[in-house]
């Protein structure tokens, strides 16, 4: 098994940490992992993205052109990464703030209303965990127990009390991910 | 009576400093470096710390200090002696570490290293020999060359407007809190040499007591570079260098005078 993922959005949306938790989860089940961020000025308020690879074999290139999964969290990233999903791959996005929706027909497209759900749950910071939950529903590449172990590893101990909330968020994401139905073009 | 009779131990009044090697000094006759070397080695010898002392030689006339001083010495890149000494003092906190530097090395190319080692208050001794000229490379202008002074790169005399003022590095570093002891001495007469030795001794004592950085400037002559006889150069130094670089303690026990 090899899963090649791009996660892209705004800095501050938890893009890098979502990737980190995923990578840690992979380690927990003895997989090879790589986490390759865009870095530099992009980290400071602009867009951020991270390439995460989980594999049962030694990972060759940590830098990729095409991905099995794209997790897209803002319009700029949609513009940039929609076309990098391999045919048959999946694209997951939060429709909040997206004005130009994806148009590809050779991939599976899903929505997770993570911004809305996080607000409902009263904690904006679990946004990325809701998205992660959605992803894991469609691609159960890591077991939930390993995600929890991964969370423990990547959070410092004083934040461990937040783990149940994170778990709840993951479950919420799993429940709420829905296939995106493209609107047929109306011919006038 | 031949030379062998004259230098018999019973006839000796003064002898060579124990910690100076037998290598003939490469300095010009009349230069103050030899005396400054001697005094430093006398202090190290008398304090009984020759086995615990590590010197850092600069680039300039005293680049070959390691040929003359019979102690462990490492030779630094131009201006970097305070950085080299910093690392030695940090990794060997029980050793006595000193740099021996000229004005070009310490106050021009090595300004940053000097200021920052001083500012960190490294537990080292800096011996700064200031003769207002680049001796080794043949008499070019130094940061401490006096106004109007002729050198090969200021052939019409140093002009303040285009070349800046002679840099008083010693006063500058005295203002840094990390610096514990700052003094300016000379070695051109017995009286001055004795005072300079006391200053060097105090500096090494400060290292023993882990007081931080001690900075000993020695205003010296460069009769070759100044194109004078040794005696003329000493008189010129008293008349011209000392008014601009006045001798005496500037900071003692961490307190500005």
């Amino acid at each position, binding site marked *: 098994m090899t899963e090649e993922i791009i996660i892209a959005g705004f800095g501050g949306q938890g893009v890098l940490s979502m990737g*980190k938790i995923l*990578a*840690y989860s992979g*380690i927990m089940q003895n997989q*090879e*992992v*790589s*986490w*390759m*961020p865009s*870095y*530099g*000025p992009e980290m400071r308020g602009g867009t951020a993205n991270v390439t995460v690879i989980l594999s049962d074999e030694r*990972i*060759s*290139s*940590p*830098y*990729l*052109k*095409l991905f099995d999964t794209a997790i897209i969290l803002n319009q700029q990233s949609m513009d940039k990464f929609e076309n990098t999903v391999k045919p048959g791959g999946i694209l997951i996005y939060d429709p909040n703030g997206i004005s130009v929706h994806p148009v590809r027909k050779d991939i599976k497209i899903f929505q997770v209303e993570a911004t809305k759900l996080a607000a409902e749950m009263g904690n904006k910071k679990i946004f990325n965990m809701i998205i992660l939950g959605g992803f894991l529903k469609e691609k159960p590449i890591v077991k939930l127990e390993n995600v929890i172990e991964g969370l423990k*590893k*990547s959070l410092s101990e004083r934040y461990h009390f937040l783990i149940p909330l994170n778990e709840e968020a993951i479950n919420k994401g799993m429940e709420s991910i829905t296939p995106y139905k493209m609107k047929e073009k109306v011919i006038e | 009576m031949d030379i062998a009779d004259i230098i018999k131990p019973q006839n000796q009044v003064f002898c060579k400093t124990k910690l100076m090697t037998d290598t003939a000094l490469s300095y010009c006759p009349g230069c103050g470096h030899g005396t400054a070397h001697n005094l430093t080695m006398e202090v190290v010898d008398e304090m009984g710390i*020759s*086995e*615990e*002392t*590590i010197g*850092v*030689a600069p680039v300039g006339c005293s*680049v*070959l200090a*390691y040929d003359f001083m*019979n*102690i*462990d*010495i*490492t*030779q*630094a*890149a131009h201006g*970097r002696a305070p*950085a*080299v*000494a*910093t*690392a*030695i003092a*940090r*990794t*060997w906190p029980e*050793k006595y570490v000193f740099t021996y530097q000229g004005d070009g090395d310490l106050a021009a190319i090595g300004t*940053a*290293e000097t*200021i*920052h080692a001083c500012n960190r208050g490294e537990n080292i001794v800096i011996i700064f020999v200031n003769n207002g000229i680049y001796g080794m490379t043949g008499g070019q202008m130094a940061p401490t060359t006096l106004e109007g002074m002729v050198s090969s790169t200021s052939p019409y005399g140093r002009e303040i407007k285009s070349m800046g003022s002679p840099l008083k590095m010693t006063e500058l570093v005295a203002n840094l809190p990390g610096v514990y002891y700052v003094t300016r001495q000379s070695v051109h007469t017995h009286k001055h040499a004795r005072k300079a030795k006391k200053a060097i001794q105090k500096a090494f004592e400060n290292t023993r007591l882990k007081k931080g950085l001690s900075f000993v400037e020695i205003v010296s002559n460069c009769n070759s570079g100044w194109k004078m006889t040794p005696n003329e150069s000493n008189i010129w130094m008293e008349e011209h260098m000392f008014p601009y670089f006045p001798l005496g303690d500037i900071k003692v026990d961490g307190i500005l005078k």
Partner: protein
Amino acid sequence: MSELKLMKGNEALAEAAIRAGADAYFGYPITPQSEVIEYLMTEQPEKRTGMVVLQAESEIAAINMVYGAASTGKKVLTSSSSPGISLKLEGISYLAGAELPAVIVNVVRGGPGLGTIQPSQADYFQSVKGGGHGDYKLYVLAPASVQEMSDFVEDAFDIAFKYRAPVLILSDGLIGQMMEKVQLKDQKPRLTDEQLIEKNGSWAVTGRKNRERNIITSLDLESEKMEKRVHRLMKKYEQMEKEDLRYEKILCDDAEYLIVAYGSSARISQKAVELARKKGIKAGLLRPITLFPYPKQQLLELADQVKGILSVELNAGQMIEDVQLSVQFKVPVEHFGRTGGIIHTPEEVLEALEQKIIK
């Protein structure tokens, strides 16, 4: 037991330095390697092992601090990125000339000038063709993974002390910034001062106790002496070529086309080789792990087997010169690489192989 962690390359290197029993680190922040000094300052190795960590006023001061500690036989390292390494080159030349052991890490970014902070391999010439002034070489290790960022620290110190010579770990922004699984080695104790004097007392300036004085210098005013020093250095480099060459061959046995790449480019090229094999193209990868010494003989042997060679580097074509020299122009050699901080994709590498070599 050794520990399994998810770490950035820069962090893994910093942790490995502590565990290798390093005595000191001196550095100056610069992207993309500031995590090294940040990690060390956070970890406080002074408390863990007694290792000294100091943020210097400049890269120049940092490399000269390395020179100072190395003069006394201490295990010392510094790290920087391209423009900072340019500043360190004078000091590196002094380290080589004065025959001092030290480890220097370059997490390369794009240049010339202030360039870009994104990954690059444009410092190949600087690393293996001297860089600083004078007749000297660096032993150059090129890690291609976070694991190697960790492992190569101890290897680098071993080589540095074996030859009393500076060793360069040539990484780049990609390897430095990415996170991978890393197996950390157990903590090695630092040498006590007594052990150090026992081991390095024949040359290091530790205080002239029970022996003649030691002098560290790179200066020989007599030309005959200086020539002897240069010959001594050249002998070391010859020995390195005989005893400490490192490389990796991937799918080379039946290869008809060869990619030569190191560091991050080797990782990307490995994927390109995988993609090529899927298309039925018999491609292989030779990855030099040491850039000096260079696997010249191995390349020459492969030249009889393959139809063409692609040198893949994140630069405008530097290592290709060594590939051409090694194969003595027996087979066509072409270069492919992106510059300016752009990273080539495996697909681009495969396309270049097909267009430039297979045709």
